[in-house]
């Protein structure tokens, strides 16, 4: 680009952006590279190998990782499904419910899980479960995850719904669709990109959670983050790097997917206007 004088341009900002990307990606790339290290030690380079990837699936800790992965994914999927359903209903209630008394309070309540620091949520949930005698286990993790996933699912869903003109619903109703049909055949398909984005966000957030899970997980139950934390507490081992790389690739695949879904939704929305 040849700029003689560009008022929007500040020298050095491009450099900072590059620095920013280096900082963001540097550690991840290093971990990726070292996950192929054919050496017991994490400090020395011993050539390229896939041994640590093999190790995750067949090594001593493989059973633990498999169980943790299974727990993580089942909990994340169920938490994401339930919280997405609740958040979708809440979005319609908030965005399409008109003005009502307590709307702000309702919004505050829905966003409460985002506003309360995670460690506080963890403490409060632990105290609560222990007081009512709720047995800590997979179910306790699932319930807690559903709670804090709701606002994360709510945000993209309600943003999408806000951009949808209410006349679609009126048209559907005018054309003899009842409330459920209106939702099922008209509103939901148009909201779909938002719902999907909300689901993915909730899924990732659940998959990502460490603090709350660590507080309220029951005996013998690990999710991937707690299992990884347990391992890295004693020092970073090469198999953890391999596992991290796999998770990292999974996350990137998921976010790329959601990016393209979002883009498609955006395009159709734009075309309508």
């Amino acid at each position, binding site marked *: 680009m040849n700029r003689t004088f560009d008022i929007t341009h500040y020298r050095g900002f491009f450099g900072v952006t590059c620095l920013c990307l280096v900082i963001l990606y540097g550690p991840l790339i290093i971990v990726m590279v070292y996950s192929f290290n054919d050496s017991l030690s994490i400090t020395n380079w011993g050539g390229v190998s896939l041994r640590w990837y093999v190790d995750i699936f067949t090594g001593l800790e493989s059973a633990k990782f498999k169980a943790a992965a299974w727990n993580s994914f*089942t909990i994340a999927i*169920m938490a994401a499904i339930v919280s997405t359903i609740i958040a979708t209903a809440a979005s319609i209630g908030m965005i399409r419910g008109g003005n009502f008394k307590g709307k702000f309070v309702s919004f505050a309540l829905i966003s409460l899980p985002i506003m309360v620091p995670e460690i506080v949520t963890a403490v409060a949930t632990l105290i609560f*479960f222990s007081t009512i005698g709720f*047995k*800590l*286990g997979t179910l306790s993790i*699932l319930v807690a995850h559903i709670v804090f996933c709701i606002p994360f699912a709510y945000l993209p869903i309600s943003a999408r719904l806000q951009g949808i003109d209410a006349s679609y619903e009126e048209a559907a109703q005018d054309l003899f669709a009842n409330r459920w049909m209106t939702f099922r055949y008209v509103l939901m398909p148009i909201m779909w990109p938002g719902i999907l984005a909300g689901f993915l966000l909730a899924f990732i957030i659940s998959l990502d959670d460490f603090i709350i899970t660590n507080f309220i997980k*029951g005996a013998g139950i690990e999710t991937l983050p707690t299992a990884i934390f347990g391992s890295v507490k004693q*020092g970073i081992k090469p198999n953890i790097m391999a596992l991290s790389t796999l998770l990292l690739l999974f996350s990137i695949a998921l976010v790329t997917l959601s990016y393209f879904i979002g883009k498609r939704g955006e395009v159709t929305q734009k075309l309508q206007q």
Partner: protein
Amino acid sequence: MISKAFIGAAALALVANTAAAEGKLSVYHWFEYIPAELVEKFSKEYDVKVTIDTFDSNESMLASLKAGTMGSYDVAVPGDYMVEIMAGEGLLDTIAKGELANMANIEDQWLNVSFDPGRKHSIPYQWGSTSFSVNRDAYSGNINTTDILFNPPEQLKGKINVLDSQGEVMAMAALHLGIPQCSADREQLKSLDALLQSAKENWASFGSDIAKDVLVSGDAAVGMIWNGFSAKARAEGANIEYSYPDQGYVVWMDNVVLLRDAPNRANALNFMDFLLEPENIAAVTNYARYADGIKGTTEFLDAELATMPENNPRAGAGAGVFVAVCDQTTQEVYDQIWTRLRS
């Protein structure tokens, strides 16, 4: 539709997880303290699915159990003084006479111990010592003194990792000062507090789980550590030496205890009996590099274990002492000192 099937499967898995455990055993164990092969062996032999959660200090195990995981675990592996505390808190189940077939395998000296008279709740697991190791590349001077921890020479300042374990740190400090543990004497308690406050300045980090790694990676030059763990660190390439200081060191015994409200009590007892078999406990010893308290293990043990410097206190070293259990008043002051140290 695929997703529906998947949800169904996931729901089923959750239910299965929370359903009453048949053929299961839930162990609350120290980290890196049991070889996976041995767990596998038990699992196969008794057709029991074993899950192991780990902790990194006696105190945190107690806290976690009291925070709602009691009733989910069958057995735990507390240290000596913690057995006494847990028994006092009513967290332990009693093993009736005859419930463990291999009770007779326990070495006599570990049969009737002060922290569990008559072995009503526990069996021996491993015993060893707590002291510290020094990287010989970083420091070549005299390491036979607790000054290394509490009053370190210049080149070791800021390169010390200390176990995040209240009982052992307080006991070492008391040894350093030459005062009795759980002393109720105000002046002695004050000097204990002052010692730890001043020593903290020179410490880099607190951590039990990282104790080995920081020595291997070189992140720390001195590490308060258990003897077997130190041996493992040395085996992994750290040029370190384990110290048996003149002032004395901490001796401990970890024990497998039967927890109250164990969901799989029968399997727990099977597991304990399993660990009383010389061949099995020897596998633990070979892995953890400490010593067991079971008769007849010698033939199964690595020969090296007997001669390892970590397992053989040098002549002239101070005496090894167990961590004492204090009365509530003193313990509360201890807690106060510890809190001041850790925050």
